[in-house]
């Protein structure tokens, strides 16, 4: 019985190890989530901050690119 049952940790570990194979996901967002999980920092506040940082980084990087035209 025990062999077939997955613990909660097994489920989460498997999810994060296969997360990049999930269709239509944004790679940078997913990489950030994996990083937070590995650092044991997967909290709502940390995710919100990370998403905002990613957004700002992308907006700024595009703005810089636009300026180069």
């Amino acid at each position, binding site marked *: 019985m025990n062999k077939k049952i997955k*613990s909660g940790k097994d*489920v989460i570990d498997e999810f994060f190890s296969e997360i990049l194979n999930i269709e239509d996901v*944004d790679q940078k967002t997913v990489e950030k989530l994996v990083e937070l999980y590995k650092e044991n920092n997967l909290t709502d506040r940390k995710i919100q901050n990370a998403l905002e940082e990613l*957004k700002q980084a992308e907006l700024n990087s595009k703005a810089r690119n636009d300026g180069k035209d």
Partner: protein
Amino acid sequence: MAKIKSINISGIRGVKDLLTLDINKKSILIYGDNGTGKSSLTDAFEWLFYDRIGHLSNEEIGRKGRDALRNIFVPGNEDGYIEIKFDNNKLDIKKSIDSSISASTSNISDEFNDFIAASQSENLILRYRDLVQFIIASKTEKLTKLQNIIGFSEVADVRSLLKKNAGRIARNIKSSNYDNQKNVKQSIILENLGRNAHSDEQLFEGANELIKPLKLGIEIKSREDIKKVLKKIETKEDNALLEQINFFTRMWEVLSEVVGNVDNIHESYKSYHTIGKELKKDPEKIKKLQLLALLKEGQSVLKNDVVQDNYCPLCQQEKSKVQLIQELNKRIEELEQLAEEKNKLDEQAEELEQLIQPNINMIDSLLREKLFKKDKYEKLKSQIAEVKKSLNSFLYELKKGLSVAFAEPGKIKIDKNEFYIIVKQSQDTAKILTENQSSNIKFQIYTKLSQAVTAYEEYQRIEKEQGILSRQQVTFEGLYADFIKRQEEALNVFLTMFSQDIDDYYTTMNPNERVEDIKLVPIKKDGDLVGITIECSFFDEAKTFPIAYLSESHLNCLGLSFFLASVKAFNKENEFFILDDIISSYDRSHRARFAKLLTEKFSDYQVILLTHEQEFFELVSSDVKNKGWSIKNFKWTKNSGAGVEKGTVKIKERILKKFKEKNIDGLGNDIRVYTEKVMKEVAFNIEAPVAFRYNALNEKRMAPELLNAVQSRISKKGNGLKEKANITRVKGMPMFIGNTTSHDNEFNESIEDLEVMWENIENMIRTFYCNSCRKFMSVKYFDNVESKIRCGCGNLTYDWEK
């Protein structure tokens, strides 16, 4: 996996002097009356493994129950301690508590620390009070408890995080109304450039067309080119005019954006109103919502055993604690459903506020424009302030309590037509101001180009932000969908296999009953896992576990089955578990099967089985002893506290002592057990035939069967013996008609009743037992000549047919 070789306890709870149990990896059955220290053993284990004693952890006894852990009679210079030696000596541990309630442990190795850390999620102790907690818990509590046990609470946390973020991003996208923002920017571009610009190419085309009249000889091919052109045609003398144009353009822009959000605001308020109206249909229910916290507190008081006996702590009326918890769970579940509806209203309110507040902020910022300080714009300012007022009226509705009526959606709204008038005025004014300078074509083109470029850059930023958030939303929705699939698959595998074990254990204890195929089934609502229920086949019909129809004994069997299935599924470090007084409400048949379940299906485990039930102890001790278990009796003395009793329990002495002390607690049961023991001897000596049974089962003869057998034998063989023994009178006693330990025996004996019964039983026994030679009347002393049966010395002699 760890098994225990020996346990030493001293100065903990009821144990004052050293209590030693050398069990050498064997299971053990421990009997002790209430107050003899059985629970001290369990408490000490709980403290050692979990560093707390759950049932002592309340406001009065602080520090996770540690304040009540140390025996109060232990001298101040001595420590209280529990010392366990395991089969793996690297795990041997002595945990002590000194007079200042500071704890220390002898083993600080990594191996031991890892062992204790891993043991935290294992099921090592089951007390009677915890037996049915899972069974009678609400569906949500069942899910939470189960997820905690199987380590799925973290899974639930991750799932909740993914869902929360997907929802939050979706709400942000909705409240930002990006399409509306982009439309406003395109309107400005169209107004100034004479065409829309969704790409750089379109912008450059429009810009080149715009600057043509200036004949600059420059072709705009980049944003940098636009900057160069703007610098080239910039004029300093019309700053005041430019300020005015920008002022009206900004007003046009802000108000256009606000007006574009009006429909969303109206729609959201309509939803808020509908949910609120539904909730207000039953104002009494809403009032009851205030009781939720009180009921939950009551539930916690009962579960934590603050009240020990079967009565309601509020009204002080007698009531079964299990029933009370069940009723509380039901009421809490009903109110939680209502609270869920209320949460929906709160969420809708949050969404509406999120939609309105940014618009108010934009208007506030607009009203701070320098030009609004001028008197000529006073009217315009007050018109815009009116818009803000109508937005605020929605927020005012949100602050109303549920006892006050909400304004109907038709009665509270923003008049878009009036709004459009101001928007149009602003747009026209900006245009007039720009185009009135027809003599200064350079200024016009400069203004239009700079307005168009600014709007285009903002348009692009909005579109990019929308794209990023939409990608994040798709990502989180995809992750959530994938994650719930994994969680449900894993949970279903677990529930299926776990249910099989529960069903196996339950049906072992309850064979040939119509409750079969017990399983734990997940409950979903709107695609979300919200609870777990217990289902079974009841009289061949699949239904939710019929708790209401089952006795406490059956519920306890189910609770025990759940615990034992958990032991098998999750205990990876420890191969022992403690069952503390869990058979109190089991009837006789369940007790026997329970012992069988432990010895047959848990023979690999080391079971520490504690009981204060003398009858149960008598019933199973020979069985479990045959299977290699140790048997011990606990006693309590004033000087030493709890300890192990030497020698066997002398039932008759205990009965006489109880009569002397007028103590009826368990006395009826003691008399029955004593009668059973004596009647076995009588039946043996007069060769009273009983039904054939195999091996140990042969010993399990209940008093009524033995009394019948003896009565039948002496009716056939003895002349006058039947009348003298008067077994019929004994058989009519309540303890032999039913089962005194059964929950449905309603006999409430008094000491006088029991005295009369005891006298009758002693009379009956004196018929068969000689106090002079201390021997039973027996067929081995049969006198063939005179056809008489007698005792060893001949004092007791009766006629006996050959």
